[in-house]
């Protein structure tokens, strides 16, 4: 890629070797680490056993290893292509993850609340005779209770008092306990004599007491055992949850967050089926990222990938569903080509609007996205949904309309090869074809491109349309590879995810596989975090926003530096920093003037 030479120090052949060496080490390491983790991550024997089981069961260990090797290769490409920038990208992601960690901790600050929240019961256990008294709340042997700090209640209660009638000399035990196993409330109880003095208090139960009394369930419950009542009269039991210490709150929050982050960062490679969720999501993201990178290369802020994806999914779905008895090797290529065509045409529209009418491509693509989604819903609801279906979805694709599976019982399909071809094709397009040259030139300096004799209008139009081809393919993959039917909301803002993928990769098609895998890793990890630790999936979208903010700010830093070094005649295309708007150039030059 042309982005590398500018960054490499010209001297020291040894230094030039470092990157490939590092890349090779990382690639092999990543491949083996992932393989090791998804087969248990325990002792080597256990891993070998798991692999053998898988081997006999589905005979696809080779496919898994192959895909993991591809992951390794993408890591290597990332290092070799970006070199020092790779470090910066990594730092950006790590900073964003730390931010996410802090957010999660804040969300978890209430996790200690389970100790002050929940249903409880209070009872007086005694062998003495029951005393009946209208004025008392309860009597011997009875249990009364309520719900401390219940959520969503206007005035939650945080303490309670119950009275019972007592007789002098009765030997009683006062119990306060959580009403059910789910409630983890940590109680303390106090017994007040009729004259108002406290005659007993407790905030725990010993293990023996838990054994002895059936009602007690844990040491968090409280018991005042063996009190002899001093006088006749109405006794009061005060019960309330134990006060929370700041330390408890923080340590609980951190423990929970650590647990959540473990699910977040390692969840995707804990089992083969979770690994498959990661890989299939990555395939989609790589395609969307490629689509976005093409338009970003031409410095067009088009987010049309979403709409193109919907059309790709729709068109390929219609073909897959109507294929009937035709064999898969006919239907699948036809469906893919149709999806690509649909994406191309839906991208051509904003392309024409932008190139020939100068309509703001961001607004127009966002509007066209909504139109595409509504159209998709229209056709899906009224044409494709089988009448007996309970929810809005098409019927399952016939087997001939599904992409053949590579790893049994997962949705990891031959889309792997489609993605490899797409990556190479986009790379060739950008770096080795006249159109790619025009896109790069128009993206880095539109005026220069115009004076250089490039038909920039045509270039801009085609950049949006060609990006649609790849996005359409992503839609086809969603339909034919992952869901195997058409569903509502088949993509929720994938175009925005594509922005992150493309930005992290500096719009370099060879790096996009890595950033796509990385981002899909976070996305699928967030799913598992939500499932395992009840932390909202949206945390990953917050991280996404932080990444965009940091990476663009950083990109501009590089841009400013490169402008300062005007002594070396730079190439007209500066692919690592293609994202600055013209106004900024004006601004930064104004800033320089001020400095002079």
């Amino acid at each position: 890629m042309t982005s590398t030479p500018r960054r490499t120090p010209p001297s020291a052949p040894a230094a030039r070797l470092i990157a490939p060496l590092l890349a090779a080490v990382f690639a092999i390491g990543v491949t083996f680490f992932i393989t090791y983790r998804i087969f248990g991550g325990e002792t080597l024997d256990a891993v070998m056993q798991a692999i053998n089981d898988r081997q006999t069961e589905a005979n696809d260990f080779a496919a898994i290893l192959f895909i993991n090797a591809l992951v390794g290769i993408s890591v290597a490409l990332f290092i070799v292509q970006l070199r020092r920038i790779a470090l910066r990208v990594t730092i950006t992601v790590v900073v964003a993850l730390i931010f996410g960690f802090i957010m999660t901790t804040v969300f978890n600050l209430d996790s200690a609340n389970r100790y002050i929240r929940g249903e409880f019961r209070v009872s007086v256990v005694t062998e003495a005779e029951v005393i009946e008294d209208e004025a008392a709340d309860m009597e011997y042997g009875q249990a009364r209770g309520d719900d401390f700090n219940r959520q969503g209640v206007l005035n939650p209660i945080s303490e309670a008092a119950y009275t019972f009638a007592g007789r002098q000399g009765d030997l009683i035990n006062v119990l306060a306990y959580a009403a059910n196993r789910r409630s983890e409330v940590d109680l303390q109880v106090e017994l007040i004599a009729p004259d108002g003095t406290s005659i007993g208090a407790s905030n725990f139960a010993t293990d023996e007491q838990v054994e002895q009394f059936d009602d007690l369930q844990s040491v968090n419950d409280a018991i005042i055992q063996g009190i002899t009542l001093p006088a006749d009269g109405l006794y009061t039991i005060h019960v309330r949850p134990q006060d929370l210490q700041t330390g408890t709150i923080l340590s609980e929050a951190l423990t929970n967050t650590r647990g959540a982050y473990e699910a977040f960062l390692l969840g995707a490679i804990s089992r083969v089926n979770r690994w498959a969720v990661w890989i299939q999501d990555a395939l989609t993201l790589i395609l969307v990222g490629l689509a976005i990178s093409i338009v970003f290369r031409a410095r067009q802020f088009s987010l049309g990938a979403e709409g193109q994806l919907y059309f790709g999914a729709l068109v390929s779905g219609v073909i897959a569903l109507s294929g009937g008895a035709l064999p898969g090797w006919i239907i699948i290529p036809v469906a893919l080509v149709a999806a690509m065509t649909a994406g191309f045409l839906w991208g051509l529209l904003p392309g024409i609007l932008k190139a020939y009418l100068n309509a703001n491509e961001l607004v127009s693509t966002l509007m066209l996205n909504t139109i595409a989604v509504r159209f998709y819903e229209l056709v899906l609801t009224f044409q494709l949904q089988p009448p007996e279906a309970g929810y809005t979805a098409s019927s399952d694709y016939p087997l001939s309309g599904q992409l053949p599976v590579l790893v049994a019982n997962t949705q990891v399909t031959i889309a792997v090869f489609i993605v490899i071809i797409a990556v190479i094709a986009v790379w060739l397009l950008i770096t080795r074809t006249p159109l790619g040259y025009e896109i790069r030139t128009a993206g880095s300096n539109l005026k220069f491109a115009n004076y250089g004799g490039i038909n920039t209008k045509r270039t801009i139009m085609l950049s949006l349309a060609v990006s649609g081809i790849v996005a359409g393919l992503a839609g086809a993959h969603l339909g034919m590879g992952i869901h195997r039917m058409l569903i509502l909301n088949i993509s929720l803002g994938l175009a925005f995810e594509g922005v992150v993928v493309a930005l992290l990769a500096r719009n370099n098609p060879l790096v996009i596989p890595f950033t796509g895998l990385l981002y899909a890793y976070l996305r699928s990890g967030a799913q598992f975090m939500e499932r395992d630790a009840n932390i909202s999936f949206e945390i990953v979208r917050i991280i996404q926003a932080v990444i965009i903010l940091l990476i663009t700010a950083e990109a501009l830093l590089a841009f400013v530096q490169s402008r300062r070094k005007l002594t070396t005649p730079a190439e007209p295309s500066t692919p690592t920093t293609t994202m600055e708007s013209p106004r900024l150039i004006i601004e930064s030059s104004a800033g320089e003037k001020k400095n002079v």
Partner: protein
Amino acid sequence: MFETVRDSIFSALFLAAILRVTTPILLPSLGALISDRAGVINIGLEGMMLGAAFTGAVVSAFAAPVVGVELAPWVGLLSACGISVSMALLLGLFHLRFKGDLILSGVAMNVLGSAATVAILYELTGNRGDSGDLASLQMPFIQLPAFINDIPLIGGFLYTVFNNQSVMTWIAFFSIFAVWFILYRTPFGMHLRASGENPSAAESVGIRVTRVRYAALALSGLFAGFGGVHLSMGYLSLFQRDMTSGRGFIALATPLLGGNNPVGTGIASLVFGFFDALAIRIGSLQLPSMLPQMIPYIAVVMALVIYALQTRQLLRVRALRSVEGIHFDVSYWRVVSRLSVLHVLMAMIAVIGIIITISLFSAPDGFGGAAVAYPIGAIIGIASALLIVINIPFISRVERLTAQGMWSAAASTLSLTVYFGLFLSLFFDTIPAVLIAVVLAFAVWLVLGGWRMLRGSSPTAAPA
């Protein structure tokens, strides 16, 4: 079926509905206008609206027991605007200080607004769809004094339109004048416009461009906050995830259409409000709901096209003016550009016909089966294609209007007749409808200056 729609469209209640649905477009549009004029277009309006809508709903619910039901909505409004303004300042920080890309930082703001609201909502209520569990409040509604109802002739109408509108609606329409005043009657507005037109020049005369832009972004965040509050606390009293549904992006297009000034922006917002309200009303027909839901978005795309074509023709005419110099006939060319806009409009409306045709053919089951849908679709499609074809020559080259005035007259009256005829057939029988339509179409063409165009330009008429 059609009657109910017709009756509801021609009623004061419909006008009231337009005002209501215009509010959440108008407020962020004014924000977009301010940021646009300062040269820092705020792409993050959508996210800021979401942040404000969420904060307003949540804070009003939690403030109600503390400060009382009367005051709580205002506390909600205040904190909502606090959130949206700080998001805008964050955007400013990343763009102006850290030199991040403005558009992508704006996109990040949108992602942040959408994600953070859902995440916090989930934390608070355990629900990720809406905040229905919280007892959120509404902004107060303004009741008009009863005597307005007693004014003869227009009183009842005015009363129906303006009574019981949310206070946010009143704020929105007064904001038009507030923004106008800020932009054109204060030193700050002057600096703001200068910073947008030519930052280097502004800098050289001592305007602190960066500071002005921070302020402009903050103001646009404020208006986005108002808009968001109207969504969650105007007529609803809950927050739904992504409830802005693209209004923040529509708001980016309205200032363009409104000629980049507050009043024009207000009018453009009303147009979108009309389409929005229309979409709601058409929803009561036996049509798939997706079709009317597309309308506002199609309207935005068309607005972008119309704006672009208009600009291009303006440039052509301006070039002609500089060539002809003193012989340039101002009023004549004004008429020509007006009529060319008419052609653009005619073709654009026909585009809706094409979209309807595609929908009819793609999902005939939604429209009563293939037997009904295909013929109707074919007719609409052919008619729309025809209308586009006859109007396109006059759009692509504005000079053709002068050379082939008669053809232009025929094309525009024919197109107008079709649209008026369709519209009038809601009220009358076919033949009278067509007749009235022809007369109306011709009248409109005349009013727009058709006769003046046919007479041709008189080179000596207008001294420059």
